[in-house]
């Protein structure tokens, strides 16, 4: 059983790809309001773990429980409707649509559910949704770009817009897959500030990250993954001092 303040419980999850044991014995508890970082060298299984949580990959055994509901076996849209939003490593956006519409679509998903046949309603009359989207774009500093086609944005702006697309749904859990990958130092710092702002609102987050600067400025709790196993678990200070972590990282690509 999960304790009341545990939002996400990854219980004894294994994932095998043929002979490869990508995830073994993963047991992870994410508490309400916390930012939980998952770090590890390349190929440690971080993205696989995220894909198991979000329902993209079925675990070979074990299960993922979110707020009392078993996620295993549910479809991505059902998992989102339970209150989990995801930011991808490569931004998944509606490249042909305007920035404003990109942010309005998730707001409509939150309000109308997985399917609604509202053929004769005009999108122009959705003033509340539009105002909400504009407000969210202001929040992430992109209001002046709202009429641009999303595909023409810079990578940093695409990521910020994707974040706005997730935040407008007020998710109970936000999953971030390397939110600063491929960003300049400046963009990285802006993103950290933005994520700190979200954190102040008490949103629960699971974040996968390479960049130690990002992890140590944001995380309340860190789990270190190496070769498909969690080798260390604890507060940033505990993890920093753990010899096993240093070994894993010195042995890996990150010196």
């Amino acid at each position, binding site marked *: 059983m999960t304790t009341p303040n545990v939002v996400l419980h990854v219980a004894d999850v294994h994932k095998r790809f043929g002979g490869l044991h990508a995830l073994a014995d993963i047991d992870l508890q994410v508490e309400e309001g916390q930012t939980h970082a998952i770090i590890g060298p390349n190929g440690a299984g971080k993205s696989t773990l995220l894909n198991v949580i*979000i329902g993209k990959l079925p675990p070979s055994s074990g299960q993922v429980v979110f707020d009392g509901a078993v996620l295993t076996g549910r479809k991505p*849209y059902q998992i989102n409707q339970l209150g989990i*939003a995801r930011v991808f490593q490569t931004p998944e956006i*509606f490249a*042909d649509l305007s920035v404003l519409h990109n942010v309005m679509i*998730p707001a409509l*998903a939150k309000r109308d559910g997985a399917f609604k046949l509202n053929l004769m*309603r*005009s999108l122009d009359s959705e003033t509340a949704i539009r105002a909400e989207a504009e407000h969210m774009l202001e929040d992430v500093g992109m209001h002046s770009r709202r009429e641009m086609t999303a595909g023409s944005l810079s990578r940093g702006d695409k990521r910020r817009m994707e974040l706005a*697309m997730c935040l407008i749904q007020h998710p109970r859990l936000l999953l971030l897959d390397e939110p600063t990958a491929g960003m300049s130092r400046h963009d990285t710092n802006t993103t950290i500030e933005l994520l700190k702002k979200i954190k102040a609102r008490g949103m629960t987050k699971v974040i996968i990250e390479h960049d130690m600067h990002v992890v140590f400025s944001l995380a309340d709790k860190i789990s270190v993954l190496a070769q498909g196993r969690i080798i260390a678990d604890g507060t940033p200070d505990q993890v920093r001092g753990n010899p096993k972590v240093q070994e894993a990282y010195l042995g890996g690509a990150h010196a």
Partner: protein
Amino acid sequence: MRAMSRNDLLLFLGFSAAVLLMPIWMQPFGAAYPDLLQRFMIFAIFAVGFNILFGLTGYLSFGHAAFFGVGSYAAVWSFKLLSLDAIPALVFAIVVSGVFALLIGYVSLRRSGIYFSILTLAFAQMSYNLAYSVLTPITNGETGLQLTLSDARHLDAAIGQSSVGQPVPTLLGQSLGGFAGFYFCAGFLILAFFLAQRITGSPFGMMLKGIKSNQTRMNYTGFNTKPYTLAAFVISGMYAGLAGALLAVTDPLAGAERMQWTASGEVVLMTILGGAGTLVGPVIGAWLIKYFENIFSAINDSVLHRFFGFLPDGVADGFVAVTSKFVGEGWFLTLGLVFVLIVVFLPGGIMEGVRRIAGLFNRSRPSTTAPGKPVRQPQPAE
């Protein structure tokens, strides 16, 4: 529900005016006779509906002629069994083609991309072949389904109405021949365009655009995309059914050839030629293709000789010999070349060309006082 935005309203009014005034502005093009104008209306409805699936949702169906054909058969059966009035026939055809689209769409939409296209093509070819073989009791095979004096027409019989001579479809007892038939079809095209405009501008339409743009994001955003794509499929199938039924109203003979894959391909060409994803594009594409099919194919050598009559004999013969390959039976060649040119240079179809020209005008307006290029004098023909 708020009224339409100003731009939408202007587009709708402009479109309606262009449609209703077609018998006038088509005159210089030699296409202002009701038979052809009716076809312009019918195939424009077909293309507008097809665009909801292809242009908005991004699913390329290669079997939409099946729904067109089903609409025609359903309408003729309504004329035979119920009444010669056009309205019950249209309603019946839309319902039947909608149910048919629901079944085919449910199976085909389990796949996307090329596999979806192949599945729809397979279903349509299956329908076409069934219409010629085992379904002959319903379709009357190669002869085609037609009206006879001995048809039951239960509704008409119930109100004591009987027709004299060869039965023809009517509207509340009025004949639908000639321009009456054109305006009847034009009314439905305007209605079809209005509905497509509303759907495009609705939250539902935005979701269809989202599915076309990034289906993965739609799923992770909390949308069940399957019912959205199925709804788009059924709506476009019903549009096709309405178009097929209107063709049966103007000419109450339904044959299986309208379900053949070439007919399905034609509506794809219309939509791409005009501009997939735009509202007006598919209509223009439909008109252009039907114009080529009916007008260009009717041009023969003597017409060309008259056209090039101002040239010296030998030169004129040369011109006629070359151009005759592109008209008459060679109209496919012209259409093919136009299609290739448009897809290569204007991937967004004719509407992209219109947008580019409008963009040029907007850009050049502030610089009209600047010295332009020297104006070329028109050269008289040698």
